[in-house]
């Protein structure tokens, strides 16, 4: 489980996170939702210790963040970090060289799942396929938690569908996933849990099925209530 407890973060004088708390469990898909600029990416960076926090704590499986934590979590940024001149094959090799947790077998499975050719150069890929390669590189690592920053944004509908399919497939296994998104159309049924953020605070955290069952509300219904009030 990832526990974010009362986390504060300022950039200069500007507070970005103002006491954020939520949890994300293994085997579940948790979405951090909010209009842009509410601190979603900052939270992910904080979990990865890429940015120091001013107050609060973050626990992974009950332990404070330490060097070994990052063998259990990976962060997939919203844009690919590999050089455009690399072939997919080279990017995979790069990951293999750098990470002990690289799982070549899963990487190959993902290649065929996304119908990508490893001899293709990253620079020549469509936006959708670039996003798929980006995801592949993170998903192929043997980690307990995957953090994905906006995996669905700015790509065509068919790529979106294919990426959504990963979440229902065995390729995710029983790992925990946190995604950030500002748009939940057609991924609503994939989510176990939703954390609604605004202006550096958590406005609401809920389980989607429980919300439908007990209150008969969709995620969008709740968003409307929370953000429009």
């Amino acid at each position: 489980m990832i526990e974010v407890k009362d986390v504060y973060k300022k950039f200069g004088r500007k507070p970005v996170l103002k006491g954020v708390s939520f949890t994300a469990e293994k085997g579940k898909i948790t979405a951090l939702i909010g209009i842009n600029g509410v601190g979603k990416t900052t939270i992910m960076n904080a979990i990865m210790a890429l940015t120091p926090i001013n107050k609060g704590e973050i626990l992974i499986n009950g332990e404070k963040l330490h060097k070994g934590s990052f063998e259990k979590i990976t962060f997939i940024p919203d844009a690919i970090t590999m050089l455009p001149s690399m072939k997919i094959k080279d990017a995979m090799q790069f990951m293999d060289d750098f990470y002990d947790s690289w799982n070549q077998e899963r990487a190959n499975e993902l290649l065929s799942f996304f119908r990508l050719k490893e001899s293709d150069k990253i620079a020549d890929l469509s936006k959708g396929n670039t996003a798929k390669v980006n995801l592949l590189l993170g998903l192929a690592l043997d980690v307990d938690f995957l953090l994905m920053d906006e995996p669905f944004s700015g790509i065509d509908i068919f790529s979106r569908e294919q990426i959504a399919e990963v979440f229902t497939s065995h390729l995710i296994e029983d790992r925990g996933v946190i995604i950030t998104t500002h748009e939940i159309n057609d991924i609503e049924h994939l989510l176990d849990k939703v954390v609604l953020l605004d202006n550096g605070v958590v406005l609401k955290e809920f389980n989607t099925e429980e919300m439908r069952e007990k209150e008969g509300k969709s995620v969008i219904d709740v968003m409307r209530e929370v953000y429009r009030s």
Partner: protein
Amino acid sequence: MNVKFNNRDPVYVQVIRHFKEQIAKGVLEPGQEIPSRRELANQLKINPNTAQRAYKEMEEQGLIYTEGNLPSKITKDELVLKGVRKELIMEAVETFIYSVQSIQVPLEEVLDLVTEKYQKSQEEGNV
């Protein structure tokens, strides 16, 4: 398998309903193997935990059964199967009654219409 889910009812409830409809229509036959929870999640584009929940509930209701490590199957229990059909019919009837009552139409007026419309749409192959 293609299901249009609404966003307000629990997805697992909608999945169970879908199975009941398939059973009532005879698309799913008694003893027929059903997809694994992963396969179902993939086919319906839903969360695997939700698929799991639906199967657990269906198992408890006796709609499906599992022997050892084999894939789950549709029940062969006649009583349960008849119950499914009855339940769906009752639901449809109740919905119908509710909408007719809400516009205050007397039963006699509507029954002939139902018969007429039903026959017509069957002739046209809409059912």
